[in-house]
């Protein structure tokens, strides 16, 4: 197992003439919580979609878990978990049916699925909801369930695209606890967010603006470098700088 989970160099995505992701080069280590910050339309989702094999890059190189983005995108899919910006479980299936379905799609056998299902529902304290329709679940619980489901097949990386948007603060903290546990098991977490307080929890963050990475470091290093008290203020400072250029 390679120690580098994600590696890109000069990764670029154009939609027509518009450059959504511009020459992005990053290295993400195994077990790292890697945060992706940026204003609306900065290119975060586009970046994640390329890494998950949902979008074909226009140019540049990329490897995920040591597998090539172009040639081995189907093999990458077995090794990654993905939570899109939208809630992606079926509201008209029960919690149990959703877990059975995704587990089956990942090729797990029924006994494994049953075991993992019980464990996941117990962890999330959702056992009584097991046979209720997923649509009836309060929003705070949905995120945890979606993450758990995206990780049924024990991926080595999970990509989370704004997993906590529209979630109340206490559920957000609970969700970040899960992210920490995940990372401590050696699973790489690649996460985008709008919340600056969440950025502080990441091992490293990259700040993106109009497709380019304009800063990439540990949160404490960034604060020190710009002599500002919070990532929030660093972000505002960088955005102002970017817009005057």
């Amino acid at each position, binding site marked *: 197992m390679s120690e580098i989970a994600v590696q890109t160099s000069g990764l670029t995505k154009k939609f027509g003439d518009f450059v959504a992701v511009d020459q992005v080069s990053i290295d993400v280590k195994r077990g790292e919580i890697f945060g992706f910050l940026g204003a609306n339309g900065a290119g975060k989702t586009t970046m994640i979609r390329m890494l998950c094999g*949902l979008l074909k890059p226009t140019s540049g190189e990329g490897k995920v878990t040591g597998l090539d983005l172009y040639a081995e995108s189907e093999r990458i899919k077995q090794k990654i978990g993905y939570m*899109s910006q939208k809630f992606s479980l079926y509201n008209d299936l029960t919690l149990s049916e959703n877990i059975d379905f995704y587990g089956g799609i990942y090729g797990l056998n029924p006994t494994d699925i049953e075991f993992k299902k019980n464990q996941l529902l117990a962890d999330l304290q959702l056992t009584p909801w097991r046979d209720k329709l997923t649509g009836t679940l309060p929003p705070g619980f949905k995120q945890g369930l979606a993450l758990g489901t995206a990780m049924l097949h024990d991926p080595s990386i999970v990509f989370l695209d704004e997993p906590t948007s529209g979630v109340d603060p206490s559920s957000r903290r609970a969700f970040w606890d899960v992210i920490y546990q995940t990372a401590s098991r050696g699973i790489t977490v690649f996460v985008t967010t709008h919340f600056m307080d969440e950025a502080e929890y990441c091992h490293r963050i990259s700040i993106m603006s109009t497709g380019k990475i304009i800063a990439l470091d540990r949160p404490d290093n960034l604060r020190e470098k710009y002599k500002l008290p919070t990532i929030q203020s660093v972000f505002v400072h960088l955005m102002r700088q970017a817009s005057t250029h």
Partner: protein
Amino acid sequence: MKRILQMMQKEFRQIFRDRPMMGIIFIVPLVQLLILAFAITTDVKHIKMSVVDFDKSAISREIINAFSQTERFDIKDFTQDLHRIDNDMRSWKTQIALVIPAGFSKDMQRGAKPQIHISADGVDGNTAGIALGYAQAILVKYGLENNSPDVSLTRRISLHIVNMVERMWYNLELDSQQFMVPGIVVVLLTIIPMMLSAMSLVKEKEIGTLEQLMVTPLRKHQLLLGKIIPFLILSYLELAIVMTVAILLFNIAMNGSYLLLASLSFLYLITTIGLGIFISTFTHTQQQAMFVAWFFMVFMIIMSGFFIPIDNMPGSLQAFTYLNPMRFFMAIIRDIFQKGSGLSYLSRDSAMMTFYGIIIITLAVFKFRKRVS
């Protein structure tokens, strides 16, 4: 294989849990069948008729009298002006015109071939066809009542309405339900599979689950088969229900082979499900998909000969119908029901339909990507 079964199980669970969808699949078709079958196809009465009598003889008056005595025809106008009939037809004032040429009675007495012209407004082709049939029946009877040994009258008239004769051959009671109900079966096997597949895929696109499926190892063919197979099964269920109602309630005669009907339906369902998938590849919301599917549907139904017989269309439009896979299936189903035709008689239509089926499903599968756009 396991993954396809997983998809199918999920698909069935969702469809059976979706009340409005169940309604669309099972209730709407029956309502449609009942309404269409009763509304369009009950006996045609009080057809507005114009009469032009250039002959003005005892025989011509007798013929006109025969028409005025039945409640099938209402004589609205006597005229000597043929242009007026044309105008009246355009303005819906008359539906059928009876023209008795000068010299008709003389011809008849001489034993030469007398001619009567009947022209019907072909816009409502179904009514026109039925009206022509009634007119012919009256003229035949008139000829017989007169004990005329000269059958040329009927033969002449037959020659003028060749289409009608061909159709009456297989639909002797002139019961248009026999003609319309099989057509409705075709319409349903077009709408339901196309809507189901388009809506189901676009819905997954809309709520984001399609994107989620695309990052799993589920292959494209597994995803598509997992959708197509349940829709096929549902469509067959639908076909069985509608046919049962048609045969038991409407006494529709099914003269052909059920196996042939089922096999050719399979080819057609591949086409309509393919269209649905195709629509889902370039639409982003359920409304858009619904709109596009509706557009396809209207085009296909109008150009299929369901309401307006293709022979009644202008030539350029007729050529256009060859682009419509439904046209072929419409002909096939009506032939199987009414004439009990076997595959050898249907081979040309079947070949055309298969040709479109292959093109459409290939295009759909090709355009459907395991990537987001």
